[in-house]
């Protein structure tokens, strides 16, 4: 393999269980976001735009969609002769085989891949954040500060600090302590899950961590505290700009709505830092006579005959005449039949919302689909590849899961079909 100065490793193997049915068949990084994109487009495009051309994508949970999506890396200009995008699944060795046990173990298991590139630095990224960031600038700071590791941090409002992994720092932003979700935070610098390590240092730490049977093999929980204990120099790199963890239904919904309410923050129109994605090859979208489209984001292949307000539609969504879609996120290929009403719904790939269905935050009622663990703020989530029965009523905070056993009288799923 060609030698390179820096290798990026994207941790994309997690299930993302808090996204409920949205990640039943696909890994979280492959979940559609923001009309045209998948979540993983953001770290991949950031790498390409930062000039990092060797990118390992660690996949494990439901890898099919993610692997076919990343493919040879062509959409991100990562089909390189020297380097490029590599899908790195867990593998069998002679005598044994291991799944990725944690984020650090996933990198540990691929240390040969990194060694072959002979890099000086390794960039560790996660596949579940929406942000635009120039990693080259962070690397420059890492080199200039002679750090062993540099962690990107974001100043969060103090009242939100207890939700994050917080870094306490001293002079020159040198990190003194890492505290996971502190009750009484001493600092408001939240770790963004973006790390640059000097490879020699990380390599030793990974081996040591692997030999510790009590370790969770996790970067935040184990590797960073271990390096701090060893007296290594860890420096915080302050990032300012839009950044959002889309690990929950409500944060995924919010991040989509941010594109409409605060488009200037993530600024997808910025041609100097394009977010690339695999193209669905569909014609331009069509808005029919009598349709209403306001305050929304649409892309190729959409056909709108009804009303779409304050919503984010992925490619090839059809909204039929008389249907109303409000404050919703519709993933590729969704059809909303005539007269249906959706409010604050997230609908998975290719699902057909039957005629006259009423679903969402403003709908009241009792049903076994209500799921307070996954859904909040009234958001309704609907699995992909379903036909929702005509005139079904789906009240606030429901998760429509075809595997949920419900009384036939309460069932809203008419049909389940395979989504390619």
């Amino acid at each position, binding site marked *: 393999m060609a030698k390179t100065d820096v290798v990026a490793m994207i941790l994309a193997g997690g299930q993302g269980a808090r996204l409920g049915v949205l990640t039943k068949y696909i890994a979280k990084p492959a979940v559609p976001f*923001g*009309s*045209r994109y998948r979540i993983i487009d953001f770290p991949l495009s950031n790498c390409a735009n930062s000039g990092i051309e060797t990118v390992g994508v660690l996949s494990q949970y439901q890898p099919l969609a993610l692997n076919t999506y990343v493919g040879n890396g*062509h*959409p991100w200009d990562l089909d390189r002769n020297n380097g490029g995008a590599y899908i790195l699944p867990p593998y069998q060795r002679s005598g044994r085989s291991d799944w990725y046990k944690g984020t650090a173990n996933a990198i540990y298991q691929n240390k040969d891949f990194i060694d072959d590139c002979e890099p000086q630095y390794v960039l560790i990224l996660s596949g579940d954040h929406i942000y635009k960031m120039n990693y080259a600038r962070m690397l420059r700071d890492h080199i200039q500060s002679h750090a062993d590791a540099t962690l990107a941090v974001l100043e969060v409002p103090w009242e939100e600090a207890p939700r994050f992994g917080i870094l306490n720092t001293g002079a020159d932003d040198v990190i003194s302590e890492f505290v996971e979700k502190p009750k009484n935070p001493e600092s408001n610098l939240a770790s963004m899950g973006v790390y640059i390590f000097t490879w020699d240092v990380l390599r030793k730490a990974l081996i040591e961590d692997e030999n510790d049977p009590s370790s969770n093999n996790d970067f935040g929980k184990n590797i960073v505290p271990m390096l701090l204990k060893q007296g290594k120099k860890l420096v915080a790199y302050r990032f300012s700009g839009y950044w959002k963890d889309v690990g929950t239904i409500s944060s995924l919904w919010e991040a989509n709505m941010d*594109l*409409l309410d605060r*488009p200037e923050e993530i600024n*997808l*129109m910025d041609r100097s830092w*394009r*977010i*690339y*994605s695999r*193209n669905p*090859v*569909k*014609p*331009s*979208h*069509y*808005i*029919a*006579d*009598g*349709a*209403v*489209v*306001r*305050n*929304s*984001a*649409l*892309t*190729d292949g959409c056909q709108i005959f009804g009303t779409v307000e304050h919503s*984010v539609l992925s490619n090839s969504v059809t909204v039929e005449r008389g249907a109303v879609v409000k404050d919703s996120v519709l993933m590729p290929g969704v059809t909303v039949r005539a007269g249906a009403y959706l409010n604050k719904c997230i609908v998975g790939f290719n699902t057909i919302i039957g005629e006259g269905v009423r679903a969402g935050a403003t709908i009241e009622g009792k049903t076994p689909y209500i799921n307070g663990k996954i859904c909040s703020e009234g958001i309704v989530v609907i699995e992909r590849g379903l036909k929702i029965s005509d005139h079904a009523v789906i009240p606030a905070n429901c998760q429509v899961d075809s595997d949920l056993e419900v009384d036939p009288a309460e069932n809203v799923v008419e049909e389940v079909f395979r989504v390619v």
Partner: protein
Amino acid sequence: MFIDAMGLILADNNKISLGELSKPRALAAVPFGGRYRIIDYMLSDMVNSGIKSVGILTLNKYKSLMDHLGTGASWDLDRKTFGLHILPPYVNSEATGVEDAEELAGILDYVRSNRSAYAIIANSNMILNTTFNDFVEKHEQSGADVSVMYNRDGTKYGIPNYIFDVDRKGYVKDMLFNPQKTTSNRCSLGIIVLRRELLLDLIAEMIARGERSFGVHAITKKYDTLRIRAHEYKGLVLRINNVQTYFNSSMMLLDDKVRADLFWKGMPIYTKVKDEAPALYSDSSTVSNSILSDGCRIMGSVTNSMLFRGVTISKNSKIHNCVIMQDVHVSENCELENVILDKNSVIRPGIKLVGHRDFPVVIGKGAIV
């Protein structure tokens, strides 16, 4: 799908002018249908037929075409063997005085180096979504030298048209260009198939005779010596013959049936990927019966129109019956009706432009109004 054929697409057509639109670029590179260029349709048809080797013949102004086609990756034609080849005019500095023969010599080399049994040659002014497998198969079975596609609705698209008269067996017995009177409504689609070996012979003969130009109809006019079979195509075809038909064909795409036939038959039309952001509609937008593309920002009113990628329509501006190409900026308080705006043009605040449905106003590439 397997097909033993190579494709040749003629990017220019000296009988067709789209005025301002074809001034800065080859006919094939004129934007059409939202996110596409004219050539995307024919090129996708060939790719969807299983053709893996396509040569694009250009005469001049081919920079924008080359930008668009690149390596052919968007059509899956970036291949080790064959793939996409752009064939610019072949200039041999040693030869003097026999210019036309030089042009053909380049094509001759390209066709000779191919290994396919058949060659499909097409003009690029026809917009259709089809595959050529049946066309080639019927040609093979018929034993004809050449098969040429036609349909019967060409005359409604205005001139220029080649009209065929055929004998009882369906072979061409006469070919007329824009005839005043005709006994036939068979209008050429400018698409032919023939054996590659025969094509080589024909090109060699053209060179030897010093003939002026190579093209589909330069071959079909040899109906006296070749057995030329007329093959009727019954699907939807939009013809781009002049600015009026360009405009009308664009407006026809607003029809649900036309879009279904052209875009949703399961055979995708490929084009260069631009990675624009999704289109954003503001609170103040009203849009109806229109096609819009990624990267558009709509704050005004758009009706019966076609917007390409990256178009901005500012507040209180009204767009009606317009075709607006890539990255055009329409400022506030404008009113445009029956206007074609070429790429990168800018309409300053408060401008009112009204064309006629049959004679749209055309604003050239990069113009500031």
